[in-house]
């Protein structure tokens, strides 16, 4: 081919805002890990809630915003993970930390089995299909007498106190074991949250992530350039189930009490999560972070108004979907061009790129 020399091209994904943010993020994460030193126990529990909701939101966002699989049945994996953890701890006598990992794998296995059904459905039918699957899993687990059947059960008191690190934390911070358990679950939530965001960010920057974005934009064209759309979607579905299952297990290690209705609640584990993602901005990593903050502020300020809280959340969700479908982060990013998690591959250098110049900036 009479192409010019192929030397001198470089590909960059870094932006100045992102570099600044990365520095800020490192400080923030360090602060967050140190938080048990200087915040109250109730605030720590709030932070735990925020972090776990953020994990669920990032996962749903990957599923719906990137892979186009709009599920309203993610509570299946939260609940299944939670029950798997309970089974390991209460019946198997395992350490809860290990049980969380097993719970993730159990949820991933469940997703393989259920994916076989729901992948036969398209679009809206996929959505309700996932919901039916979640109901089936709930009803089946409600039959499990050893774990309390329909009314549920509690973790043995000793289980969380005997976790490997609890004793150490209790001594180091000179707190009681129950509080040490809170600190440990908080750290685990923080770890899971960072790992999830890190994993998704890493995924989006790999070849597979690029393929996923292409499938999202135009499935037909993606197939014609050799992307296996079906396989990518399956992989995302199973990965998301794995992390969602671990998040569910972790949430219930902290709650220490489980019942089928709570563990498979469509409101708690899917509706909230969807509103967080939609309000923040679907299809971006920043969106769910913004969304979870809005969600939490709303929850705190409307705490005394009962069902008004959900009513307002629902109305905001509808309004955002109709009038700002790219969410709050989308509004901000469109105006400023700022991205904290750049995944855009920017081509630089080469024989003629400087000569012709580049136009346009980074866009989300």
């Amino acid at each position, binding site marked *: *081919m*009479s*192409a*010019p020399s*192929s*030397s001198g*091209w470089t*590909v960059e994904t870094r932006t100045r805002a992102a570099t600044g943010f990365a520095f800020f993020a490192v400080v923030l994460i360090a602060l967050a890990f140190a938080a048990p030193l200087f915040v109250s126990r109730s605030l720590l529990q709030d932070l735990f809630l925020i972090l776990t909701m953020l994990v669920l939101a990032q996962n749903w966002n990957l599923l719906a915003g990137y892979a186009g699989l709009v599920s309203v049945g993610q509570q299946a994996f939260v609940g299944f993970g939670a029950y798997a953890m309970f089974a390991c701890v209460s019946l198997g006598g395992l350490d809860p930390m290990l049980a969380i990992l097993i719970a993730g794998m159990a949820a991933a296995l469940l997703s393989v089995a259920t994916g076989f059904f729901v992948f036969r459905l398209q679009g809206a039918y996929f959505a309700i299909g996932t919901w039916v699957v979640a109901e089936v899993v709930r009803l089946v687990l409600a039959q499990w007498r050893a774990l309390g059947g329909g009314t549920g059960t509690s973790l043995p008191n000793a289980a969380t106190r005997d976790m490997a690190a609890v004793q150490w934390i209790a001594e180091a911070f000179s707190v009681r074991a129950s509080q040490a358990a809170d600190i440990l679950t908080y750290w685990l939530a923080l770890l899971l949250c960072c790992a999830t965001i890190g994993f998704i960010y890493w995924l989006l920057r*790999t*070849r597979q992530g*690029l*393929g996923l*974005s*292409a499938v*999202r*934009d*135009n499935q*037909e*064209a*993606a*197939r*014609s*350039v*050799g*992307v*296996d759309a079906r396989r990518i979607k399956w992989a995302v579905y199973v990965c998301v189930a794995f992390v969602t299952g671990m998040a569910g297990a972790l949430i219930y290690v902290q709650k220490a009490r489980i019942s089928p209705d709570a563990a498979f609640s469509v409101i708690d584990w899917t509706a909230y999560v969807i509103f967080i993602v939609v309000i923040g901005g679907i299809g971006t990593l920043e969106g769910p972070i913004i969304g979870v903050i809005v969600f939490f502020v709303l929850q705190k300020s409307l705490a005394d108004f009962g069902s008004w809280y959900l009513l307002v959340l629902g109305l905001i969700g509808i309004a955002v979907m109709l009038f700002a479908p790219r969410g709050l982060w989308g509004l901000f990013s469109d105006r400023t061009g700022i991205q904290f998690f750049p995944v*855009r*591959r*920017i*081509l630089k250098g*080469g*024989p*003629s*790129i400087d000569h*012709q*110049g*580049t*136009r*346009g900036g*980074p*866009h989300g």
Partner: protein
Amino acid sequence: MQPVLDISAVNKRFGALTVADGVTFSLAPGEALGIIGPNGAGKSTLFNLITGNLRVDGGRIVFEGSDVTNAPPMQRCLMGIGRTFQIPQPFAKLTVFENLLVAGAFGSRAREAEVAARCGDILVQTGLIGRANVPAGQLSLLERKRLELARALATAPRVLLLDEIAGGLTEGECTALVGTIRDIHRSGMSIIWIEHVLHALNSVVERLLVLDFGKVIGMGRPDDIMASKEVREIYLGLDI
């Protein structure tokens, strides 16, 4: 020499409508073949049969000696059949460069870093280098057509199928694009090109194939074909 592509007796029907009727032709390595014919003659359908987006009802499609008649589209892409869409289908939220990167990384089973430089070169070659980092959704029609071409090239094809890539462009735009395609052809690429803008087509291809009602009704040198009575009748309905 073994042909790049060998189509023999390919048939396809949609209900009562025959869109490919015993289509037979072959493409030599490095050859550029033009396909013309009225709207609805079955030209785009023929491409979809070659790329595997549609299944043939009968006949054989052989690519570089291997029978691909029943291979899925993805596999044919990996083997080296690259195509452009008549209506451009960019990945709108990805940049122009990323559009190529997807095609390069998946279409030739390579790592991103390995194909990045090649994608850069293709952007230079197709005149899109100045728009490399712009989301594809913001491109003009000409640029979208160029992107179709560039993205197909990024899959490292052995044969390139161009579907009305010059349609809807102004005279000047068309001339520039034809120049690019001529360069690609001169570099040794085998090409099949469907086009209504005949002067563009005829300045590149060595052979023309005329399709009407799914049938091949003429094949030969462009000048001969354009002068033939059948073509003028079909295109113009004129009695000459």
